[in-house]
């Protein structure tokens, strides 16, 4: 795994936080919540892929 996925997820996190604050200030709380949920789901998909990769490597290395 390289470091660019880390940068990608940090970027998504910052973007979601900014959008969330802008929409909250504009009085659109429902859209802000939807955006934060969407960002979380996108990041979760990426992280789940990495987790399954780690589990596979551990399973093959340690013979589980």
């Amino acid at each position, binding site marked *: 795994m390289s470091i660019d996925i880390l940068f990608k*997820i940090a970027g998504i996190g910052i973007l979601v936080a900014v959008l969330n*604050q802008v929409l909250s200030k504009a009085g659109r709380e429902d859209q802000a919540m939807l955006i934060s949920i969407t960002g979380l789901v996108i990041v979760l998909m990426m*992280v789940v892929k990495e987790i399954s990769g780690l589990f596979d490597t551990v399973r093959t*290395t340690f013979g589980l």
Partner: protein
Amino acid sequence: MNNLDIFKILAFALVALVLILIVEKNNKEMGVLLILLASIGILVGVFSSIKEVITILKKLADGAGINSKYLSIIIKVTGIAYLVEIVKNVCVDAGNSSLATKVELAGKLSIAILTIPLITNVISLVEGLV
């Protein structure tokens, strides 16, 4: 693993730390996911050297005439311990220590089940002596 790799991993950890600090301020869940991802990245980075150590251990055990069944149990326990430790630490970092305790309990139980054959072997050995 040579010297260059450890420097790479240290730099990775520092960059990840800064990113986590930035993101965590505004977006707590994303920070937890970043912590998880960074720990996975470091562990995947050291896996080639873990493989080397395991092959050397297997060679040593073969030379010493130890049953390879016992060594494979030890290696399995090490793998379970690594995974449980990662998940437990993520739970603690996310501020949910009760879930972390349960994860630890599950890991301990699975390790106990793996080591039961060894324990029964020891007991039958003692019985044979008496």
